[in-house]
């Protein structure tokens, strides 16, 4: 009896092994099929973005250029000027850096921190290259009086690296003073909290308007006869196939002072003279709504098409008023579509760059504009990366919140 059981167990084990092997084979081939896409995403997407975001956290430009000075500043409290050894180390570092030609990058980084430090560093290096008599401290202070200020040394310490919160703090309108205490930047330098709030507000506004405009449209398409709904769907998709830039430029033509809309408004007698419709928040929102509308309509339409028409008829036959039938039968069934559409529109709206840049005014620029500004204009990649990182984290937080509140399983897209 026991032998039979052993044989049976052996058979079962062999079967399990075979099943496992077959399962393994399937998994391996599945993995191999996915591998090209996975590698592509890794190489072309995850790695470069990761490398860029890392720049917002690291600070490696100053340390190799001023190693002795930073060593001498180890343990410095930032309440008074550092000791003579720091001044002596600075002279050595500057001479060395000037010989090696490594000064410019460090000087550029320090100028992002404190205006004029680029010149301070370069001019001091030039003046201190000559031999001098007397103590290093006096020579350094002669070379540039900025070295007599605690904050100049504080800037060196802040740029010590290799890791830093300097850029992240700057992206939140904060900075550390020489003693390391975090403080708000002066009001005339504070900008990013406003920009974050504005970015999320514009994105939310655009999402709300696309929902209000897109919901009836999607319902109309879903409830029309097949021939009509195909035409309507085509009209929704047509602008979808046009370049974003072209659609934005079209709005510039429409809304210009001597454009079609103004002519129509004046001809209708609504305004005595043409109004400024471009370069303001109104133009940004209307152009973004137009561009993003298909992303709201399509998921709504996909969900609405699945709702059997007899549900509404059944509700009516059971005595529900049209409003009650809509509210209690139709609307709840479209919620997944609303969720998917809002999520897609909102996240895309957060990243809008070219549309606000072209049709917006000074106070309508969104975060991506500033990321571009710091990457291209002042070449402060650390700050650009920190802003990107914060935008990414905030977006992920919103997506996560959505997942907690609504659940991703409820999201259905076309």
């Amino acid at each position, binding site marked *: 009896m026991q032998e039979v059981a052993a044989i049976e167990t052996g058979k079962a084990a062999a079967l399990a092994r075979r099943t496992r092997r077959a399962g393994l084979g399937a998994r391996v081939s599945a993995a191999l099929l996915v591998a090209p896409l996975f590698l592509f995403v890794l190489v072309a997407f995850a790695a470069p973005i990761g490398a860029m975001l890392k720049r917002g956290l690291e600070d490696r430009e100053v340390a190799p250029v001023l190693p002795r000075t930073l060593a001498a500043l180890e343990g410095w409290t930032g309440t008074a000027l550092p000791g003579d050894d720091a001044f002596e180390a600075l002279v050595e570092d500057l001479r060395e850096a000037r010989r090696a030609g490594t000064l*410019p990058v460090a000087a550029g980084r320090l100028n992002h921190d404190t*205006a004029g430090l*680029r010149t301070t560093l370069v001019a001091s290096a030039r003046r201190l290259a000559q031999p001098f008599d007397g103590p290093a401290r006096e020579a350094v202070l002669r070379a540039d009086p900025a070295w007599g200020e605690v904050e100049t040394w504080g800037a060196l310490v802040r740029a010590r690296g290799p890791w830093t919160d300097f850029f992240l703090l700057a992206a939140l309108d904060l900075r550390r003073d020489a003693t390391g205490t975090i403080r708000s930047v002066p009001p005339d*330098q504070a900008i990013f909290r406003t920009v974050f709030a504005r970015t999320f507000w514009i994105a939310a506004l655009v999402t709300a308007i696309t929902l209000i405009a897109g919901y009836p449209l999607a319902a109309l398409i879903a409830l029309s006869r097949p021939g009509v709904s195909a035409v309507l769907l085509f009209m929704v998709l047509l602008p979808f196939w046009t370049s974003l830039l072209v659609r934005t430029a079209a709005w510039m033509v429409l809304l210009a002072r001597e454009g079609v809309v103004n002519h129509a408004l004046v001809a209708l007698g609504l305004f005595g003279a*043409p109004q*400024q419709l471009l370069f303001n928040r109104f133009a940004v929102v209307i152009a973004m709504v137009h561009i993003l509308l298909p992303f709201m309509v399509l998921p709504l339409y996909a969900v609405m098409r699945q709702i059997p028409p007899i549900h509404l008829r059944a509700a009516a036959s059971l005595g529900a008023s049209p409003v009650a039938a809509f509210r209690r039968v139709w609307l709840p069934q479209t919620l997944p579509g609303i969720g998917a559409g809002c999520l897609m529109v909102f996240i895309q709206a957060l990243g809008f760059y070219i549309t606000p840049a072209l049709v917006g005014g*000074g106070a309508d620029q969104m975060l991506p504009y500033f990321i571009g500004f710091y990457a291209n204009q002042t070449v402060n990649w650390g700050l650009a990366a920190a802003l990107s990182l914060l935008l990414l984290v905030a977006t992920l937080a919103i997506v996560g919140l959505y997942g907690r509140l609504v659940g991703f399983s409820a999201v259905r897209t076309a």
Partner: protein
Amino acid sequence: MRRSLLAAAAALLLAAAPAGARDLTIVSWGGAYQDAQREVYFRPFSQATGIRFVEDSWDGGIGVLRTRVQSGNNTWDLVQVESEELLLGCEEGLFEKLDFARIGGRDHYIPEAVHDCGVGTILYNFVLAWDRAKFQGTPTWADFWNVERFPGKRGLRRGVKMNLEFALLADGVPPSQVYPTLRTEAGIDRAFRMLDRLKPHIVWWQSSAQAPQILGSGEVLMTSAPNGRITNANRTERRNFGIQWAGSLYTIDSWVIMKGSPNREAAYRFLAFAANPAVQARLLPLIPYGGTAKGANDGLPPDLLEVSPTNPQNLSVSLMIDDQFWLDNLDRLSQRFNAWLAR
């Protein structure tokens, strides 16, 4: 475009040839401007001297030049740079110090075009421009700020550089005192207060092409603009835009010889050729940038003289952009400007 492709292909072929056999490589901004340079400078120089050249183009940025020199793999000889790159690159030793005796001497050029490491080749301005069809007369920066007397929107570039200068000029600061004033905190505050006054009436443009566009579409009554864009709009789109030279800001692009260039001799011969005022004057009909050699405006017909930035009448009322000031302060003032704009 095709020509520069050919030139690039030629450059590639030549890069494959043994070192030392490289032709003189001239690098400029590409586009319509480099096409004009080819007609005016490159080809005639090659025909006159028999020196062969290849072209390349770039978009600026000191990092590009730094990498080329430090990598030891630099294939550029003569490069056209903006004033900021000239300043930084000279400081960093990326360029050869120029021997002006070989290219006509320092006095051969207008003083602003002479630098230890480079020689100016074009001078261009950022001017107050308006549409003569809509505004009679010649507005000044004070008029630009006076929206009560001249109602209408005003166009300015979205950015802090130059707008602070214009604001102070509008407030009555003499041109020579603009940068000394900006070097004080009170001066910067004063400029921002002026911008405050105008803020509700400003339409911000971003790329140079937008300036004549918002002027032409009637979006603004007056705007700041690069002089070249305005003259080009008048030439090619039959606009009737006016240019106010008084209180305009100018900057200079220079030729530099890259450090260690094996073609230094040829480069000097090119610079000597390009120093000829008669040669420089030929650029103006093609593209309205001013020649930097003294006498480059002599004998020009009135319509060209009127749009030439180095016409002494235009130049004497213009102010040179202070690159050192902006190198030091661009980071900080951009931040303040962006915060101001967001309010």
